[in-house]
């Protein structure tokens, strides 16, 4: 299986260079997140008012902001925080939402009812507004952003995991496993879960992008990460007031970085979906 | 199989197919799905096209009516519907023929109907397109068609949606759509597969009655030899894109001549036989993507194979109306 999957993956990457490109970009982002802070030319927090609002140049590739900080350094350093928040929230929701959906779909009954009600309640809010409310109520900290982003993605994970589980619960191989002597939990974890895992991984890649956007959006309106911490959303917010006076670089570079990261995860998710389920190609 | 004279009387024939070939271009190569298929169907006649999965019986129907998907194309031969050549007809001309002069019904009737349009309107759509009726006249005629296919309380049922009807009812609606314009030819592609046998019997009765009343020719595509035996006047047996034998139903069942037909009959459970008397068919269908397909695609599975079988296939008319594509018929 892994042999054919790998072969198929290689086939997809060669057949679809976009996925290969996304993969390369992804690796780049991961490297920036790990090694960025020790590689950047300037201290991301060091201000230099003499050199405030400098356009991009050989010295400051992405220019400097209103108090003279190097935007390139800030943008690179921010990668760790932005991706970290997104990855943590996706991991959180994958574990809880995925498991809830699995259990909900497999056992049905009151478990399904309760999990369904929780999902419905979350879904009753516009999701970004709910995230705002959670962070505003719990306080402006990184763990709270992670939590809020996880919570608003919960219904999505439940729905995907539940739908896939229900579909497989009806499949003959689940009955076959019972006949072969597996009990509920054995069937659930040993037979159903591995089968829906690839789809959940695709889901994770697709929601990474959304999680990044959500966290940056919160910071943009002043919730979440606080200045002067380098974070893409805040940096765009700080640059916003200079757009009308023509200092485009202050907002553009962090915004472009943000966009590229999200784009990368979306492309990767689409590519992974092609690998997992070639029939669902869009 | 070239230069074949179709068995049915030419004067009465509705559809004449000769040397009809179809290919599919796929990633894994060209599938030679149909090879020089030839048959004809006369007015009021029901011909069954019988074969196992992959034999090409459905492809034949789709290709005739111009319903092949983008990968498939007709590579040769001729198909004349009441004198009109179908293989060279433009898409617009085919669209004008479909549903008017030649209609088709499918298996899985509930999925084959538009789920959010009531059945009366779905019948009406065909009438408005092909019979030039206005909305009101089409609606009235649709109710008459529902009555004609034996649906009780047709005026009320015309407002029903497919999900509100049983599978058998849906198939009757399909038949009503197909015969609404009194086509000369009806192609029924596995019309009762998936329906219960009691429903199957009723649906087949209705098709038979309508064919008798209107004189339309029917092609019944089925994998079920027994159903073909009961419901057709003539059977053409298909194997791997070839028609291998074509004979009046009784003749074919009593005196099958092609080795594949004999094998197929020997594998079909009957009301009286024993399991021990049944024989399976050894081997598999040849891979139709091969470039070196043998002239007889059954040769590799055949126990009557001769050196002569390497020669190009030809039809042999063993007796009037009984043709077989075999060098060594039984």
């Amino acid at each position: 299986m892994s042999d054919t999957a790998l072969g198929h993956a290689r086939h997809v990457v060669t057949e679809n260079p976009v996925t290969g490109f996304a993969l390369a970009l992804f690796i780049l982002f991961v490297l920036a997140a790990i090694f960025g802070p020790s590689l950047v030319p300037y201290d991301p927090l060091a201000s230099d008012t003499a050199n405030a609002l400098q356009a991009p140049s050989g010295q400051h590739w992405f220019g400097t902001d209103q108090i003279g900080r190097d935007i390139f350094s800030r943008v690179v350093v921010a990668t760790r925080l932005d991706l970290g928040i997104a990855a943590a929230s996706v991991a959180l929701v994958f574990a809880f939402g995925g498991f809830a959906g699995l259990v909900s779909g497999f056992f049905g009954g009151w478990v399904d009812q309760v999990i369904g009600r929780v999902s419905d309640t979350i879904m009753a809010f516009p999701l970004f507004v709910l995230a705002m409310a959670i962070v505003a109520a719990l306080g402006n900290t990184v763990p709270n952003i992670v939590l809020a982003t996880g919570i608003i993605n919960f219904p999505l994970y439940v729905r995907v995991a539940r739908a896939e589980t229900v579909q497989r619960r009806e499949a003959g191989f689940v009955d076959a496993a019972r006949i072969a002597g597996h009990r509920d939990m054995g069937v659930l974890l040993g037979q159903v879960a591995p089968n829906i895992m690839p789809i959940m991984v695709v889901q994770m890649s697709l929601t990474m992008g959304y999680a990044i956007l959500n966290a940056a959006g919160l910071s943009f309106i002043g919730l979440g990460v606080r200045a002067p911490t380098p974070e893409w959303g805040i940096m765009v917010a700080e640059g916003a007031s200079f757009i009308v006076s023509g200092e485009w670089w202050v907002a553009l570079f962090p915004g472009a970085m943000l966009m590229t990261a999200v784009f990368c995860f979306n492309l990767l998710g689409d590519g992974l979906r092609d690998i997992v389920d070639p029939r669902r190609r869009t | 199989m070239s230069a074949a004279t179709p068995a049915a009387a030419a004067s009465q024939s509705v559809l004449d197919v000769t040397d009809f070939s179809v290919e599919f271009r796929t990633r894994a190569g060209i599938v030679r799905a149909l090879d020089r298929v030839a048959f004809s169907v006369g007015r009021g006649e029901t011909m069954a096209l019988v074969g196992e999965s992959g034999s090409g019986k459905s492809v034949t129907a789709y290709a005739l009516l111009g319903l092949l998907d983008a990968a498939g194309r007709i590579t040769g031969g001729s198909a004349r519907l009441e004198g009109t050549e179908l293989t060279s007809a433009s898409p617009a001309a085919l669209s004008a023929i479909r549903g008017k002069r030649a209609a088709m019904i499918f298996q899985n009737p509930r999925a084959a109907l538009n789920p959010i349009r009531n059945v009366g309107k779905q019948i009406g759509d065909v009438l408005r397109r092909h019979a030039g009726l206005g909305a009101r006249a089409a609606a009235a005629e649709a109710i008459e068609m529902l009555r004609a296919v034996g649906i009780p309380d047709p005026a009320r049922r015309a407002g029903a949606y497919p999900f509100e009807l049983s599978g058998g009812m849906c198939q009757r609606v399909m038949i009503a759509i197909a015969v609404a314009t009194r086509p000369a030819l009806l192609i029924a592609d596995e019309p009762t597969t998936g329906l219960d046998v009691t429903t199957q019997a009723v649906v087949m009765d209705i098709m038979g009655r309508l064919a008798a009343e209107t004189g339309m020719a029917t092609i019944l595509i089925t994998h079920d030899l027994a159903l073909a035996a009961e419901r057709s006047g003539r059977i053409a047996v298909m194997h791997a894109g070839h028609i291998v034998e074509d004979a009046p139903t009784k003749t074919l069942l009593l005196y099958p001549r092609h080795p594949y037909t004999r094998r197929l009959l020997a594998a079909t459970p009957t009301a009286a036989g024993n399991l021990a008397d049944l024989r399976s068919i050894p081997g598999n269908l040849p891979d139709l993507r091969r470039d070196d397909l043998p002239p007889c695609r059954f040769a590799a599975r055949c126990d009557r194979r001769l050196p002569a079988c390497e020669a190009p296939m030809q039809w042999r008319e063993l007796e009037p109306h009984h043709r077989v594509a075999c060098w060594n018929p039984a």
Partner: protein
Amino acid sequence: MRGLLLRLAGSLPALVAVIIVTFVLTRVLPGDTATYFAGPTASAESIAQIRAELGLDRPLPEQFWSYVQALVHGDLGMSLTTGQPVLTDILARLPASAELTLCGLLIGMAIAIPLGIIAAVRQGSLADHACRVIVTAGVSLPVFFTGLLLVYVFYFLLGWSPAPLGRLDAFASPPPAVTGFYLIDAALIGDWETWRGAAAQLILPAVTLGLFALAPIARITRASMLAVLGAEFIRTARASGLSSRTLILTYALRNALLPVVTTLGMVFSFLLGANVLVEKVFAWPGIGSYAVEALIASDGAPVQGFVLTMAILYILLNLAIDLVNRALDPRARHT
């Protein structure tokens, strides 16, 4: 009719859930609610006073009961920033947000639905490739960033747009309020100059939201149209020789629209969130920027009122979508 009433009743649990969650978020969770409500500059006495005023010293069920009672009477508290009842503020600002969101949605739908249809009908064509690029790029755009880019290009570089500062030029006066939608109100009295001014202000933020809504709608339209075109009943329709007009519009499109309508609920959820960000970028005097200002001032009641309003709006939207769905899909009427 009975189904309609049942559906109305069906959105009650969501409403109850929303009220409970808002209550829990503001009153129960850690963090001193009185300090939060009193604002950052409050003294110890005023905090104590507010605590008593809010009844925070009473048991939770009792607090909840008075909270619900206040809600029923439309009492969402007072805004410390504006000094007005929150309900008054929100009602005054809601039309601005509604006009913006609806225009954004209309722009998104007007482009996305035809694009999705063409992409599906002509698979592999230029339109199809364009659709795929737009879909993937579109969902990757941070909406606040798109807005800023548009401002830079159309205001700073080209000078085609007015400054991104609200619904009307500072010197213009708004049309008399009928609907609160400037475009409609100005048109009603035939004041086309004001109409043009309002439209000029509206176009950039609305396009920003439209670009945001475009991707998910185009994606689902294309996918569902493709699925429907491959369905068996389309094959039946083709076998019946129906014209391509009937085939695509009556048979394929109506079926394909069902998932699109359902997805609009999700799109609305995103749009209402994006609305907050866009209002901030364009200094749009809607309820989103109201909430953001209150958040910065740590003014609790407006934030809570905003969350409730958004959630109730969203419930109503979902109700509307459900009704449209019922009208389109006979199967939905039976469940």
